[in-house]
């Protein structure tokens, strides 16, 4: 049985380590915040200039001056700090963020990532995605395994890239893959969702991969 969105987020949350500074993308990655293990202390970064993101405010307590990168109202924590966008991306580009979890349109076997534009459709812009994938120490993609029945983990990306060789891990509703950013291309299936078969995931994956299942 494939993982639900919440289960995918919970699986991604297992990549969090105590003391990590983490940037979560919009969409399913946002759900990861709900699954942080209680013995793990992480600080969330928002690229619009904040470290230490708190939960959404109670109704009536929204502050127009306190938003996340998705432009949603949020709250602060006792550990929070604010800084400019230049300082925020200095933090990101400088490799100080431990983990970024984000969505994708396509991931290639070599770690290429496409998630910002579909030619022919209206282009909205890449926002901070290119900076995040280029700068953050570890990049985890959290995405549906297929789109319209077509694989999204591919031999090569056909869409314009967000970053070249930037993805370390892909988590879908069917399983978990690791990728190599440097050296030889190496996609490895390390986990299968419950009752998902190797045949099923192989059929739905274009990128060639090796199998080295770990005890989940």
């Amino acid at each position, binding site marked *: 049985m494939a993982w639900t969105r919440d289960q995918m987020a919970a699986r991604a949350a297992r990549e969090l380590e105590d003391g990590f500074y983490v940037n979560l993308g919009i969409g399913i990655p946002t759900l990861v915040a709900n699954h942080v293990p209680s013995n793990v202390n992480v600080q969330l970064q928002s690229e619009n200039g904040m470290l230490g993101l708190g939960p959404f*405010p109670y109704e009536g307590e929204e502050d127009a001056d306190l938003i996340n990168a998705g432009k949603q109202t949020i709250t602060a924590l006792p550990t929070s700090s604010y800084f400019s966008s230049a300082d925020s*991306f200095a933090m990101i580009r400088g490799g100080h963020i431990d983990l970024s979890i984000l969505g994708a349109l396509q991931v290639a076997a070599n770690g290429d990532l496409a998630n910002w534009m579909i030619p022919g459709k209206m282009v909205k812009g890449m926002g901070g995605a290119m900076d995040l994938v280029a700068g953050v120490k570890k990049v985890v993609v959290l995405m549906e395994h297929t789109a319209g029945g077509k694989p999204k983990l591919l031999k090569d990306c056909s869409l314009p890239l967000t970053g070249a060789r930037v993805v370390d891990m892909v988590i879908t509703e069917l399983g978990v893959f690791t990728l190599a950013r440097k050296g030889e291309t190496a996609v490895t299936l390390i986990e299968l969702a419950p009752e998902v078969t190797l045949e099923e995931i192989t059929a739905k994956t274009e990128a060639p991969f090796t199998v080295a299942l770990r005890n989940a």
Partner: protein
Amino acid sequence: MGKVYRDAQDALAGVLRDGMMIMSGGFGLCGIPSLLIGAIRESGVRDLTIVSNNAGIDDAGLGLLLQTRQVRKMISSYVGENATFARQFLAGELEIEFNPQGTLAERIRAGGAGIPAFYTKTGVGTAVAEGKPTAEFDGETYVQERGIVADLSIIHAWKGDEEGNLIYRRTARNFNPMMATAARMTVAQVEHLVQPGDLDPDHIVTPGIFVKRLVQVGPGFEKRIEQRTTRKKLMA
């Protein structure tokens, strides 16, 4: 000192001209110089190049200048929230140069810091790097990006004193401090105009040297929220 102006029109008097490049602070609708944008709209100045992370929404922020077709080109990282933008762009009436958000922030910071160019890993191997010089440092490839200096920066701050010293509130800081440094003329709108000495000099984010003119927002000033997200209070 003479840095304090009566209203936004006054603060921009003699500064605006067709075809100029204007940096406009804010992230989404958070920390945008809304009064100054309004005054630019009223001035009727045209063919503007606007450097701003976003393009506002249809009826707020820079969206107001798109409605009146005063903008020729945007240099931005994300313009997804604006249907007017999409329509004008698809009709070929508006030019857009997309920059990765961090590259945009750094280009502005570099412009203000006298740095004409720098290297970054962001965008290497993507369309963003096309046509730009690349170089290897310690075995990694980087792309060269250029600093930007504008004719005018319009910014929003929380408090400002007559010397032009500014502090910002929460995530309304965003692009405002760098833009303050990266234009030949910087005009700031402040929510609270205070006296020199009222701001702790250790807390000042933008020293007065960068701010040529400032104006206090009026009593009816409204800060709009783009995505009102809340959680429910659990009953005890």
